[in-house]
């Protein structure tokens, strides 16, 4: 039985990761034909780093991802605090409403945002309302639910007396948040921010409907390139992208694992104190 489990796990892993392995191998291939491995080379990578179009686009994507995830994290944490202090009925209603955009098809979100911005453009009587700002707004919007979703559980797990203890010891509500509550929910905030960052970095569908000629991101550019045969340096770029997202995910899992361990200790203690 154990052996079967192992074999099965390996098969699933292969199934999940074979595409990435193929891509990785292709990025080191000296030839342009995917079917034939003509020898190991780093040329694709060196070509990538001197590329005049791809690197600025990657920077654009990173700027957008960092900014939108930061803004979403701040707003999402504030929203979570607000939702947390609501009554039980209002809280579950609001949580339901923030969760709906998560399940909404991306293309619907994209089209509706595109329409909204077009409408605003007409009101403002400008031709090119689409650009960096609209992309940023769109990314913050779809990132918000992820942040709220990962901060809320931390708030509900927190001993409500902690905040009261801080107030009791002379903190203003603001001080109580920064000196006590923030420390308690920080793991949730960080994992929310990382999730938002990765979501924003690789988003194509929503971006497609709200971007303008003045500001393009990497996924948009790559999508437009697909019509022509892909250059090998794109494989190199993707491999790097995959590895960096993998790293972010590893960090996130580590944080979660550490947090769970701490949470376990806490419940352990609380059980003793019943």
């Amino acid at each position, binding site marked *: 039985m154990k052996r079967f489990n192992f074999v099965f796990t390996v098969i699933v892993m292969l199934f999940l990761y074979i595409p990435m392995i193929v891509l990785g191998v292709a990025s080191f291939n000296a030839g342009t034909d995917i079917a034939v491995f003509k020898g190991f080379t780093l040329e694709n990578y060196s070509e990538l780093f001197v590329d005049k179009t791809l690197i600025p686009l990657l920077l654009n994507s990173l700027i957008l991802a960092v900014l939108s995830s930061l803004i979403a994290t701040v707003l999402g944490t504030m929203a979570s605090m607000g939702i947390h202090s609501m009554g039980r009925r209002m809280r579950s209603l609001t949580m339901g409403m923030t969760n709906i955009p998560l399940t909404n098809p991306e293309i619907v979100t994209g089209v509706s945002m595109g329409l909204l911005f077009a409408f605003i453009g007409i009101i403002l009587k400008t031709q090119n309302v689409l650009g960096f700002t609209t992309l940023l707004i769109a990314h913050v919007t779809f990132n918000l639910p992820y942040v709220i979703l990962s901060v809320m559980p931390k708030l509900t797990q927190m*001993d409500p*007396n*902690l905040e*009261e*203890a*801080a*107030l*009791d*010891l*002379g*903190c*203003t509500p603001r*001080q109580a948040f920064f*000196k*006590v509550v923030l*420390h*308690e929910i920080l793991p949730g905030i960080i994992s929310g921010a990382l999730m938002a960052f990765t979501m924003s970095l690789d988003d194509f569908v929503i971006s497609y409907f709200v971007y303008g000629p003045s500001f393009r991101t990497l996924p948009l550019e790559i999508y437009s390139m697909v019509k022509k045969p892909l250059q090998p340096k794109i494989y190199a770029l993707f491999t790097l992208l995959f590895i960096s997202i993998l790293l972010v995910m590893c960090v996130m899992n580590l944080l979660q694992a550490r947090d769970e361990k*701490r949470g376990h*200790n*806490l419940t*352990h*203690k*609380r*059980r*003793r*104190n*019943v």
Partner: protein
Amino acid sequence: MAKELIRLVNCQMAFDDEIVLDSINLYINDKEFLTLLGPSGCGKTTTLRIIGGFLQPTSGDVLFDGERINDVPPHRRKVNTVFQKYALFPHLDVYDNIAFGLRIAKLPEDEVDRRVTEMLGIVSLKGFEDRKISSLSGGQQQRVAIARALVNRPKVLLLDEPLGALDLRLRKDMQNELKRIQQAMGITFIYVTHDQEEALSMSDTIVVMDKGKIQQIGRPEDIYNEPKNAFVADFIGESNILDGIMRADRLVEFFGRKFVCVDSGFEKDEPVDVVIRPEDIDIVAPDAGHLCGTVTSVTFKGVHYDTIVDFKGFKWLIQTTDFCPEGSVIGIRLNPEDIHIMHKSEYSGMFGDYSSYSAEYDEIADPEYTEEEDDSESREEERNEE
């Protein structure tokens, strides 16, 4: 007489139309150790939270030093709280937890250091400065919580069942410790508990509460010796409560017999509740007693025997050092001062009959009692090994 510090005037508290506090009137003197005592859900914690500022009463006033403080937020009140589950800050070590309030108040760091060190001495936690909260035992966390509150030199310390989580031995030690700290620092303690023994041994004044109402306020001796109604008589200690009729001042009739007592001021022929404490009853030979009954069960309790005696179908609990075997017929004598008379109340007839007596009454009477108290120790050991 000590100065009055806190007064609650007609305080009422309702959550979603459910009244949890009903017109509470209460004053608390400076330097007093006052205990709010009652079963869970009686409104004692709500009262404490109103004084702490975490709840605003639906109606009524809270006065502090004569000033109305209903709208004063917790961080501007001169009271500090020790929470039931301690609520220590897990991201700070022992020292920083205790220093928290002083640093918020922006005291100079050398003053902070002096006071935290002094406080660590008072709660016997010297040498624990750099320990993480999660590495402390329950009793140690408890003392950090007390130190964290007291270091701010509040006028009043609020304690919400602070010993509920500790095992029995530790609880006894901490009771003495708390009383000592209160006397040493000369501040007012308002203490919430459901444990009558704790209340009796520590308090200057006990406020017995049930169903959102104050049942009785008084010194521990008064509460025990002169309970106002069947609820108080039953909740504080053990009581045999019988139906009686007041035939005249200092003369009560029950079980078809007239007894001389010390209570007066009742109407003639008024139906009353008669309280007889199990330890006040003298056992004599069957023919020499006022009443005669049959022993139905005996339980050895260490100091005394819990003896259940059947008197004409009504079972009494008698605590005696004389062993009377099951089935034996005994007589009892009641002295006038052993009989306490109470007016009838809504609680009449609900308590004080030992027909369904169980030898485990102590444990059952304690809602917080769980088997876990035993295995918490073994887990403590586990942790030390880590």
